[in-house]
């Protein structure tokens, strides 16, 4: 060996092959999981003897989806892009007169007497056809959840200068430490009580 050549070079050509082999093994045996979605609670099955509670018609916001993906909101054919706006107007209406116990002090709506009394009373009722496409249903759900989130964000900004969705995700994150969680829990609860999510789903009709 000549002095100028230095030490002999190790042939690392096969190392790349081995790494590729491992890489391809991982590519075929694993998946990238999607682990986010819309959280919902299903209604429990009520005992048949129980009388359903009486709810005033003006406190119900009806959304009907037909098999062609068309939307009937409060008996009015509506574009899906307008749904969030309409739902927010309904929830935020605060129709109860000032002075009454149901008066909503934080609502910024139009306070129409024929729409919902206050956000705690307001119920969104969603009905869909058996032939409705799942993707349409998810879009509608997304818009309705979005309406609640937007209103909650507004109140959270007013009270705590922070978005509600942001606070909630920090609260639900298992890496958040306990003392911080305790503090957040109260705030999250308070905002949730201002706009409680009341989204009811009627049993699916076979046709309409």
């Amino acid at each position, binding site marked *: 060996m000549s002095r100028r050549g230095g030490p002999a070079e190790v042939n690392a050509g096969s190392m790349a092959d081995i790494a590729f082999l491992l890489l391809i093994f991982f590519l075929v045996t*694993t998946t990238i999981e999607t682990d986010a979605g819309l959280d919902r609670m299903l209604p429990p099955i009520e005992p048949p003897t129980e009388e359903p509670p009486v709810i005033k018609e003006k406190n119900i916001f009806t959304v009907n989806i037909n098999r062609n993906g068309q939307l009937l909101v409060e008996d009015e054919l509506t574009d899906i892009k307008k749904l969030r706006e309409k739902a927010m107007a309904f929830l935020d209406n605060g129709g109860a007169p000032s002075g009454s116990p149901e008066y909503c002090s934080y609502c910024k709506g139009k306070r129409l007497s024929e729409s919902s009394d206050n956000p705690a009373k307001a119920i969104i009722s969603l009905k869909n056809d058996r032939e409705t496409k*799942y993707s349409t249903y998810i879009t509608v759900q997304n818009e309705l959840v979005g309406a609640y989130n937007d209103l909650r964000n507004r109140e959270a900004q007013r009270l705590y200068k922070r978005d509600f969705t942001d606070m909630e995700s920090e609260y639900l994150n298992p890496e958040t430490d306990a003392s911080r969680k305790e503090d957040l829990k109260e705030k999250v609860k308070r905002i949730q009580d201002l706009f409680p999510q009341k989204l009811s789903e009627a049993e699916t009709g076979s046709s309409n």
Partner: protein
Amino acid sequence: MSKFAKKKDAGLPAVNTASLPDIVFMLLFFFMTVTVMKDNSLKVENTLPNASETKKLEKKDRVIYIYVGEPTSQYVAQFGKEARIQLNDKFSAPSDVGDYILQERAKKPQELQNVLTTALKVDKNANMGLISDIKQQLREVNALKVNYTTYDGDAFNNLQ
């Protein structure tokens, strides 16, 4: 003059490939960290719809998965084009969902049994009729917490 002649003899130097393994290992580690092992192979199409108001499913041990969609091309001859439910590794009828949830719940440790979430991974082309049947079954076994698993994105993309 002799100096020039010497250099010509050496010919082309070999391309140095020493950094190639490093690059491949980098890719390998990336895949190892962002993916998880497949626990069951999907037999249904599973293109999830998009939604923007999503919440993350945090604890993996508290989730039961239900897949719904058209059978993939190799099963079409056997099961047809209609959307089906896949529980564990096989196609199932809507009436099996209740039993499946109870079975899975029994496998979990006692303290987790009341906080389980059912993740519905439904193909965007499925019909709501099947989903309603599943939801009814879930209500019957009192598994009320559901998560409609979606991709992150603009929900209006679903409509096209």
